[in-house]
């Protein structure tokens, strides 16, 4: 019951949130929601212990697919988004054959190289990918015009609600996956490589499964992005954004489900809102970099460890009579 209440408050807060913000903050909020899906899907992949540098290009596969579907084939937008997600998953499936022969650093760079090849192909082939300039005038969701209900998805608030619903559903699915038997196996693949293998778990199959699932959700986030901005180009998905995703996940912490979300929200607010409003221009990357180093040095377990500590402290205070044995259990 208490959990239900908390979720109700969170939902109400998220619904009310855009109405308290300025216009540019509403825009940033939309990107933030999309990036939350991206970074959480990234975490699913990292559960198996592999860190990819290709996730953002896979996101781009979803974006390009969905955009081309609507532009060339006239597919209705939400449907094209799902196709984008499926295509991203399919490309990940193909990539898994070479990539999962590698591990660790090799996987990191191997994923980067294969992603970079995809990105260079977008650049090289003006037909159908639009070359270096990419695609533009990508349709957004069709306006809704039913009697008194008028929704124009160009409006950040409207698109925010749409994205929020999509992302919330995806996060719920990702959460269920993690808590399922499959999710537990992902953890096992990471921590007990040899043991899991000995107990009959086909490591590679589970790695591939995690990779394909994570990539599909990344593809969906790419499609959400493409239909909001209305333009994509190969540079939108370059290694620079990948580096940001990586740092969101690590600075936030990947031990918990909410860690990467925390990292994404805090670092984005810092970079796009706080530092800009303080009037930094050329200094902005410098301060951002320094904060990244500081956070990793002083919070090696991520921002999530702060939450954990706060929750532990709160629990201790609210239940002072708790038996010591209970805590450690």
């Amino acid at each position, binding site marked *: 019951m208490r959990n239900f209440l908390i979720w109700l408050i969170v939902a109400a807060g998220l619904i009310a949130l855009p109405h308290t913000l300025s216009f*540019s903050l509403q825009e940033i909020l939309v990107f933030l929601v999309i990036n939350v899906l991206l970074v959480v899907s990234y975490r699913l992949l990292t559960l198996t212990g592999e860190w990819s540098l290709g996730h953002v290009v896979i996101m781009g596969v979803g974006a390009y697919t969905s955009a081309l579907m609507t532009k060339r084939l006239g597919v209705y937008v939400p449907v094209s988004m799902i196709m984008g997600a499926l295509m991203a998953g399919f490309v990940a499936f193909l990539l898994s054959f070479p990539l999962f022969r590698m591990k660790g650093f090799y996987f990191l760079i191997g994923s980067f190289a294969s992603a970079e090849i995809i990105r260079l192909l977008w650049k090289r082939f003006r037909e159908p990918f639009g070359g270096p300039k990419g695609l533009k005038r990508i349709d957004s969701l069709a306006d809704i015009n039913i009697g008194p*209900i008028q929704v124009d998805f*160009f409006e950040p608030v409207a698109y925010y609600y749409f994205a929020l619903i999509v992302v919330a559903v995806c996060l719920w699915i990702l959460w269920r996956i993690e808590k399922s038997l499959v999710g537990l196996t992902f953890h096992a693949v990471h921590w007990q490589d040899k043991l899991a293998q000995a107990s009959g778990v086909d490591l590679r199959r589970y790695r591939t499964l995690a990779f394909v699932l994570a990539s599909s959700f990344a593809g969906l986030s790419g499609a959400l992005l493409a239909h909001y901005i209305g333009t994509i180009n190969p540079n939108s998905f370059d290694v620079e954004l990948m580096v940001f995703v990586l740092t969101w996940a690590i600075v936030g912490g990947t031990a918990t489900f909410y860690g990467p979300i925390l990292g994404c929200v805090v670092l984005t607010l810092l970079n796009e809102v706080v530092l800009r409003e303080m009037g930094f221009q050329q200094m*902005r990357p410098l301060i951002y970099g320094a904060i990244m180093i500081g956070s990793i040095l002083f919070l090696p377990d991520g921002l999530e460890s702060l939450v954990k500590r706060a929750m532990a402290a709160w629990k201790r205070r609210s239940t002072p009579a708790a038996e010591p044995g209970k805590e450690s259990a």
Partner: protein
Amino acid sequence: MNVKTLFKGLSRRSFLGSAASVAGAGALSSSFPGMAIAAEDNVIKIGFLAPLTGPVAAWGKPGLDGCEIWADWVNAAGGINIGGTAHTVEFVGYDNEYDPGKARTGATKLIREDGVSFVMMLGGDTWPGVEPVADKTGMLFSTLLPSDLSPDSETLIAPAEVHPVYNVTGVEWLAKNKPELKTAVMCAQDDALGLPSVATYLAAFEAAGITMQDDPLLFDPATTDFAPVVTRLMSTDPDIICLDTCYSDYVHPICEQLFQQGYKGQIISCTADFYDQIIEKTSKEFMEGFIFQFPDFDDPAMEAEGINFKNANAFFEEFNKRFPGQWGAVSWEYAAIMDLWKAAAETAGSTDPAAVKEAMMAGGKGLHAFGEAEWWGSDLFGIDHALVGDWPVVVIEDGKARIKAMGSIPDWYAANGELLKKHMAAYGQMWDQRT
């Protein structure tokens, strides 16, 4: 709460509300200095939405620097006179990092929170992200890249650079003055600036009767070592090597390599920023006769009758004093756009975007930095929103760049328009081909 108010924030109607309606929603952010929403009386704010950090910053930051000088000078001379009252000008910068999403956010902030009257952009990748914002707010935008123009955006103008069309003037001058040069090769970076420029040079060479000995050689924008590119260019013994619209980061090492690999022929390029440094890296003799399109603003010809950029020589001096080593084409181009905007706003007696645009485009003519010009472009861009007229042909003589002639772009186009359209179409650069 009825359904109508619930959906109030979701429809276009509320978007069109003026900046004043922001006050409530923006209360949260207005606690920061510099975020005050209501414009103070008699201050005109101009948005500057370009990359200020990151790899493309060289196309934005020096422009904002130039605008600061422009604003200081205009404000010192009494500001902008709108309907009898003097207004001071202030530039509000937003770093879009050359990212369409951040550009969209920036455009929203500049228009709906800062209350700017006009937004200057670099354009390129960032414009398609801003386009819907321009559509729905009616704000006037300018770009340095006319390839952003299309009939779908009524409020985007390209009043300074008509890149890459002006490159034809250099080739035309070359063909007239050195008719013995008959063969050419070209290299270009594979990006949004390189490709339309390739098409333009191909058309210009064809019009001038110069044959291409090889397909244009494309390289990735991240290239650092140009020896292989130069070796390939020289392998066919051309009379002319064309560097297309290479950025200065490429022009310098390419020239240095051409020099070291023993090239002795003609070079033509769109830009040659810091050419004095190229001369130092090569030799005066090697660079003699190098043709490009961007004059130094200390050229005496820039003070001639008909040049509309006021006090060019002094501007150049002031810029180099404040920002040594940062001068380039974009340093003056944004300021030149402001000259045009100021004149139009004073004529219109208003800073309203629609009124300013109407005054600016009245009669289909305008005062471009390099002389009177016409609003043109339907053929290539689908809309007459590029200010096109004469463009200088600059040649290096005895180590100094000098304006040798003013070439007329409309005249060239009247004679060779079909060629240009053919090559633009082959490279997928016509407005109706853009995906």
